[in-house]
């Protein structure tokens, strides 16, 4: 998890990208949610060692990002920051699975290396897809899409409020940290005790704020249900897009595109 300022900046950057107006952004959030779900399933279900067959699937996030005018650099950096756990676990595969399963020219390749590469590719694709979804749909879009797809109302309402108040509370948190740093000679982070009272103050304020927000919502007629957020429109283009995506995922998943293309290139020799 990045530090608080960095996190806010990150959220802000993605947020700004999500506010753009491109054909990708104009798609119904539900369509993007469903397509992303299909994509993640296609990636996750593809056979472990056939990591080359994951290559065609990269078309989905790459095209979405490119058409949605989202800088690849931003997504790449987020991926690097988030990668440690998958890499740390995956790196054991070459150690534990040393069965040689293929020869690439002079190179004898073990199953472990293949599955490690596959884990890396899976990580990049799935995490990239999540970021793509957000950067082209926006948090609120995702929330209203989920709501319209049947997510419980309490969940959606608090999903939206959470996002709104992340900015307020992260800001308060950052100020508290700064105030602490200014008065702590060492410049080291707070001890547990100090942290407890620093965060405790934040918590009490957050709690009171929750009550005030509640009062403010009741004052304006809140009766338990959020009024419909932006109206969503699922048009023909949306249906076509979704169908095309799902068809492509199926083709990429079962069609062995990389293998067949490679055969053409290297002349059919295995």
């Amino acid at each position, binding site marked *: 998890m990045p530090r608080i300022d960095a996190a806010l900046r990150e959220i802000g950057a993605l947020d700004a990208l999500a506010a753009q107006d491109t054909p990708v952004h104009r798609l119904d959030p539900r369509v993007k949610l469903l397509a992303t779900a299909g994509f993640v399933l296609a990636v996750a279900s593809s056979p472990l060692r056939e990591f080359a067959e994951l290559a065609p699937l990269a078309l989905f996030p790459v095209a979405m990002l490119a058409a949605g005018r989202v800088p690849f650099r931003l997504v790449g950096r987020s991926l690097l920051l988030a990668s440690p756990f998958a890499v740390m676990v995956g790196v054991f595969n070459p150690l534990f699975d040393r069965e040689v399963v293929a020869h690439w020219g002079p190179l004898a390749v073990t199953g472990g290396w293949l599955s490690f590469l596959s884990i890396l590719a899976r990580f990049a694709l799935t995490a990239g897809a999540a970021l793509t979804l957000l950067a082209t749909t926006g948090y609120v879009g995702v929330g209203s899409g989920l709501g319209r797809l049947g997510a419980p109302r309490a969940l959606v309402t608090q999903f*939206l409020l959470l996002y709104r108040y992340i900015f307020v509370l992260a800001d308060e948190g950052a100020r508290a940290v700064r105030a602490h740093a200014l008065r702590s000679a060492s410049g080291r982070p707070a001890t547990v005790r100090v942290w407890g009272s620093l965060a405790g103050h934040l918590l009490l304020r957050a709690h009171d704020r929750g009550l005030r927000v509640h*009062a403010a919502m009741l*004052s*304006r007629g809140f009766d338990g249900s959020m009024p419909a957020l*932006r109206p969503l429109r699922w048009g023909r283009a949306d249906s076509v897009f979704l169908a095309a995506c799902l068809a492509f995922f199926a083709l990429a998943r079962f069609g062995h595109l990389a293998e067949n293309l490679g055969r053409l290139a290297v002349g059919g020799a295995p």
Partner: protein
Amino acid sequence: MSHHIVEARNLEFAYPDGTAALRGASFRIEHGESVGLVGANGAGKSTLLLHLNGCLLPAGGEVRIGDVPVTRATLAQVRRSVGFVFQDPNDQLFMPTVGEDVAFGPANMQLPGEEVERRVRESLTAVGAEHLRARPPYRLSGGEKRAAAIAGVLAMSPDVLVMDEPSSGLDPRSRRRLIGLLAGFRHTKIVAAHDLDMIRELCPRTIVLHEGRVAADGPTAGMLGDRELLERCGL
């Protein structure tokens, strides 16, 4: 409720931790009046205002809006006629964009779509914030937030406007703009503030609150000149 009278009788209230915030406050505000509410920090201004639209219900005494007593049963009706602008606009701007936030109240009133849209447009125009419509609230300056919050309340076309420190945190120019804006409203207004100059400009009448009770109530001009009174009430 043709007469937008706001009346408090012997209001008493204590917070759950035992702090007695109101100890028998009474006043009566007539239709169309503009009343300032002043008092030291912790005097009970915010607490008092929260009783006016039933966000808090009194432990003793009662509040009447027109001829309706504020009780659990009349909350919906009361809240439609009393618009509340909170001290911290962050508490009030909870929707993803300014436009959606302003639409929140009217949409909850089950108004038809065009009517909601019309009210959003009109109230944003009234506070000079049409250009903020698509912006998320957390990216606004303090003054812009305040304007958006007021627009959200105006969109419900309340009869009575209750405002808690509307000018706090504003720079001089935003403050002037706000005062001009509020002076233009014909609503019954109740404004709590530490900004005595603003009170002087906006409110012919002032109520001074001290330790949960009304310490003085009368024309602003005389009251804000009374050094002894202000001193005694910590102002």
